[in-house]
């Protein structure tokens, strides 16, 4: 199967999945007690039953479930995710404003985790009983066991009071003056700690996976062939073996994207990173249903897109993968 037909197939499945996610979200929210009418009434400082009834009629809340669902779906198709009464802004605008910050955090943390995890795994596999290998095993256990917020707070303490090198809160410094380049540097500077924190949880997983995968590949016949034709040890490891060992790491990294996004919610809260996670927490506290559903919808879209990208990457890594 060609690349494009695979992509088309994946996009098709992705859309089906999205519809399922939307229906599920909608159903879950409708089961939860209370609705927008109660919220609005609450905001107005209390309202009598007739006013609430009027609001319900106005927003179609008195209609049967499937009618409401259908209306919701047809609005979503037009990229209308509703209106946030809490922020007084259309949900789509609200989310698109915060999305880049989250994407930056999630993507950079994921790349950092995959690259350093893989390198550690390779070093560990080179000498399975050596010091690096033990360190990797220890660090990955540690990283796996330590909760994100704990790692984050530890880093904050470290960088606030011992090495004040990196900012520990926010995404940019409003006092920084300068052109695009200076501003970008400022954002990257702010990104360092949240990125490391988020990456640390997944680093553990990827380095163990890369180690196991490398150990298996290093015993393969084609690795012996490479040595037999005089490939230097570096080439054996980083070219012949690694290229084959990468498959499982990339596959798992692709599956982990949703977990990284969940992790980002906590990391954003710890480092006051102005992304979707922070928005999600605030909207949950405010019972801002349209925004919560909008965020769920967007995260699903992001996860699905990342999965498609993972599939494409895998095809480039391993020519044997045709589809599925």
């Amino acid at each position, binding site marked *: 199967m060609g690349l494009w037909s695979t992509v088309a197939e994946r996009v098709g499945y992705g859309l089906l999945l999205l519809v399922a996610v939307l229906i599920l979200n909608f159903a879950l929210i409708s089961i939860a007690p209370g609705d927008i009418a109660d919220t609005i009434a609450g905001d107005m400082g209390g309202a009598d039953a007739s006013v609430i009834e009027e609001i319900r009629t106005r927003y179609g809340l008195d209609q049967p479930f499937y009618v409401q669902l259908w209306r919701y779906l047809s609005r979503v198709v037009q990229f209308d995710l509703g209106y946030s009464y809490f922020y007084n802004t259309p949900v789509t605008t609200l989310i698109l404003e915060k999305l880049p910050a989250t994407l930056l955090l999630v993507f950079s943390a994921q790349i950092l985790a995959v690259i350093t995890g893989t390198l550690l795994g390779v070093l560990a596999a080179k000498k399975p009983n050596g010091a690096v290998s033990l360190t990797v095993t220890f660090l990955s256990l540690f990283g796996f066991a330590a909760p994100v917020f704990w790692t984050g707070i530890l880093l904050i303490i470290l960088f606030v009071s011992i090495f004040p090198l990196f900012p520990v809160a926010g995404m940019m410094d409003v006092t920084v003056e300068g052109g695009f380049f200076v501003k970008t540097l400022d954002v990257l500077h702010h990104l360092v700690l949240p990125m490391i924190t988020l990456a640390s949880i997944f680093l553990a997983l990827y380095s163990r996976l890369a180690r196991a995968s490398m150990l298996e590949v290093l015993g393969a*016949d084609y690795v*012996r*062939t490479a*040595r037999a*034709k*005089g*490939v*230097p040890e570096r080439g054996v490891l980083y070219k012949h073996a690694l*290229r084959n060992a990468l498959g499982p790491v990339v596959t798992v990294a692709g599956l982990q994207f949703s977990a990284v996004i969940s992790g980002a919610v906590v990391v954003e809260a710890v480092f006051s990173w102005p992304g979707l996670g922070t928005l999600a927490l605030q909207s949950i506290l405010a019972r801002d249903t349209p925004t919560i559903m909008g965020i769920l919808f967007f995260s699903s879209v992001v996860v699905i897109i990342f999965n498609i990208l993972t599939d494409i990457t895998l095809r480039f890594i391993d020519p*044997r993968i045709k589809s599925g």
Partner: protein
Amino acid sequence: MAVATDPLLSVKDIVVDFKTRYGIARVLDHVTLDVNSGEILGIVGESGCGKSMTALSIMGLVPDPPGKVTSGSIKIGGMELVGMQLDSLRQIRGKDIGMIFQEPMTSLNPVFTVGEQIAESVRLHENASPKAAMDRAVEMLKAVDIPEAERRARAYPHQLSGGMRQRVMIAMALACRPKVLIADEPTTALDATVQAQIFDLLQDLQEETGTAIILITHDMGAIAELADAVAVMYAGRVVEKGTVDAVLSAPQHPYTKGLITCVPHLEPDPPVERHELMEIPGVVPALTELGKGCAFAPRCGEATEKCSVEEPQLLATGDKHLTACWVAQQERAQ
């Protein structure tokens, strides 16, 4: 055969030990072999007798740990390979000695095209540009009779059949025109017609390039047809060796006699039918359990008392013919 000058490749008293759970296994026990330039040396013996390990020790590829070349010497063109720095050794691998492995299905890297894999060898050893290396790869694919070589060079291993992959392996091993080619059971995994083609190909290439070949095989017919000299191995030792004519027409070690059910006719026309090794009753003793005496004694029909007490050495029992057997040596002495 030409007057014996210094052999191209000389393996002398190689000992390889493996650490196992049950103790030290002596996988190779003082193996001594010589390969002259332009010659094909056949190595035969049952599964597990150390044929592949002999090949790997020449390449410096004995898996360490658990294995180790404990003593002995391997020289190519007078250069000592045992104990050589890895960096110098890898300049010899692929350049002076090429190797084809037993398993064509798994010996090629699945994520690179076969052209790239052949070209890599050329780039490593000859300072060639990527373009020149790829041209050589295509040329080599043509030399091993792969049709549509330009197109096949861009194929991945999984797109080729087993026979094709073994041809690719041969092309890769010969790409830098090595002095010695080690072919470790190059046809075991292939079906009969393809086997014959691969043997013919090896013979043609040998005649064209003059590369010396160590041919490891179970196929006595192939040995009779292709090889100049033969070494018979048993339990990590060479038990009989000599010219093919001498060993096949007058085998002296009881084990070799057992291997040869009927002496292949050494006619000019290659025999169509190939003779597989005959089953010899009994099993090869575990290498950790070998005691003193002849390793073949428990299975030998001609064993005497001396056989289980003292180990026979590999000594001349004829013209260009050596045998490690008390009885054979005694017959010679009389």
